[in-house]
């Protein structure tokens, strides 16, 4: 809900998150290098550092990609999602270290500039096995840079949410490029089946979690329009909606979060204006619908964030008839006040 921007808006939870993240990265590098040099005393430091940075970045990318679907499948992973952008930027920095050091090591100090060398030193575009894998890594690093550089609410607001979201979906393209970078690069020389097996396992985990989360989401998109009457749709019994929580239904192709609070019911678009977080999986806290992803808040009756914040989401008219909740599938303009429906038997 930032209306004024700071470089990093740290709070206690973010500090805990970042300390844990940093500790994890340091421990990973320490184990990789410590055990690596103990088992391979002939190894050169450059190679070990390159591999430590590269594998740390790749492993962290798996975590970054897994957190989203894990949070969809189990809300207890949501605290890991809250500050995921710091994990993404950390992953980029590790990847950048790997890329920059590789550029220096393999392309630097030669008869042409390192970037020229990157482009011309392997011309085998005609062969899959000999394909210039370093270019795939460089392209992935460029995409990761775009995402890391815009990983801030300033860019989210100024690029607009759809553009920002589309840009950050490039992480899947970057992941694919990195998989090919590894397969056509280091795995051509490092032939242990265990290393290839770990890569495949990582891909199965990432793909499997996304498929499982997508499967679960399908149920939410089942339309209820056939139960319409007088322009309203029966979305279920009032009593079925837990207090201060919502039921999410799909009306007219859009997901709507129907919140119950006290004797009242209000309906909002399910998509948080911040990052399309699922508002319907949030709670009403201090009278505000609170997004489960980053805690953005909206008034349930008008879909507007409390001042001075300016986010607004569409609202929907509601009715309660014989203990059942009816919602109009016609979205009101974002921030439009809609009188909450009241359950007569629940009046305070």
């Amino acid at each position, binding site marked *: 809900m930032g209306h004024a921007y700071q470089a990093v808006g740290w709070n206690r939870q973010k500090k805990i998150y970042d300390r844990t993240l940093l500790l994890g990265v340091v*421990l990973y590098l320490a184990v990789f290098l410590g055990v690596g040099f103990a088992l391979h005393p002939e190894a050169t430091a450059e190679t070990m550092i390159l591999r430590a940075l590269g594998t740390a970045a790749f492993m962290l990318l798996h975590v970054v990609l897994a957190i989203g679907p894990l949070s969809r499948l189990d809300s207890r992973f949501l605290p*890991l999602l809250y500050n995921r952008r710091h994990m993404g930027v950390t992953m980029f920095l590790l990847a950048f270290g790997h890329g920059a050091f590789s550029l220096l090591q393999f392309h630097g100090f030669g008869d042409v500039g390192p970037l020229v060398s990157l482009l011309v030193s392997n011309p085998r575009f005609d062969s899959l096995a000999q394909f210039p894998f370093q270019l795939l890594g460089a392209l992935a690093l460029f995409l990761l840079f775009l995402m890391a550089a815009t990983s801030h609410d300033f860019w989210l607001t100024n690029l607009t949410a759809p553009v920002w979201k589309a840009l950050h979906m490039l992480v899947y393209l970057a992941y694919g490029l990195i998989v090919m970078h590894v397969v056509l690069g280091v795995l051509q020389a490092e032939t242990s089946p265990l290393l290839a097996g770990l890569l495949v396992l990582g891909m199965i985990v990432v793909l499997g979690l996304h498929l499982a989360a997508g499967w679960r989401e399908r149920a939410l998109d089942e339309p209820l329009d056939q139960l319409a009457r007088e322009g309203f749709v029966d979305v279920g019994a009032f009593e079925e909606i837990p207090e201060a929580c919502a039921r999410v239904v799909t009306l007219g192709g859009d997901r709507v979060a129907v919140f119950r609070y006290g004797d009242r019911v209000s309906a909002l678009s399910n998509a948080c204006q911040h990052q399309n977080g699922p508002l319907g999986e949030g709670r009403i806290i201090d009278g505000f619908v609170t997004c489960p992803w980053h805690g953005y808040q909206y008034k349930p009756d008008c879909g507007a964030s409390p001042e001075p914040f300016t986010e607004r989401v569409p609202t929907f008219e509601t009715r309660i008839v014989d203990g059942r909740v009816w919602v109009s599938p016609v979205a009101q303009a974002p921030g439009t006040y809609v009188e909450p429906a009241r359950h007569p038997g629940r009046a305070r």
Partner: protein
Amino acid sequence: MSAAREFYVGYLPQAPPALARTVRARVLLFLGLGLAGALLITAFQQPFSKAVFEFGKVRSFEGRIEVRPYPMLVVERPGAGDASRYLLVAFGKHGAEAEVGALAGRRVRLEGSLVYRDDQTMIELAEGSVEALDDSVRPEPSPSQAVDSRTFVGEIVDSKCFLGVMKPGNLKPHRACATRCISGGIPPILLVTDAEGLASYLLLTDAQGGPVGAEVVARGLVAEPVRITGAVHRLGDLRVLRADPSAWERIE
């Protein structure tokens, strides 16, 4: 309240207690998996060669310069054989032609760091350290008559990295570096590995015994399986394979 019912808001100072415990346990699990991954990946790397690059350790050498096919320092030694030949290279991905090209046949003192693997030794020159000791010029020796004419299957590597500066200094991940090194004047070597895994090294030249580099790079033959038929010569303790680069074959 159970962790599943608790609601987390990141900017609030305290996470709900049951949820915090659950998250802590899962983070530890992730951390454990990550560290196990680090352990497995680093342990299952291919063995590294015992090649050595004495980086930062500068020694002094005296000997006579030869520049054909590639710059080398010839150090006379007692006993069998005429001398030891040390390939000379410069800092980075550069040959030593610029440093010693004008000193063919001259006795010099120079400083540099050793690079060695198996029976092959190279010196990376310390920049500006080459000093001519006298004005006498000894003609460069001719290589021996061809001892053999054979076909070899192997991989073209740059001698500097393969002999110890990089590990691994061969195969595809090292291809770009080897290309730049050979393009910069580092002598190319054909690495031939027999069925028992024993490696032998053949210094590559053109059919007349002249240096190759640009041709190898232009044909994109570095770090790929190649078949080369040529005449094997001895140059002191070095084996040299003379073959026309245009006839070198890539094995797809």
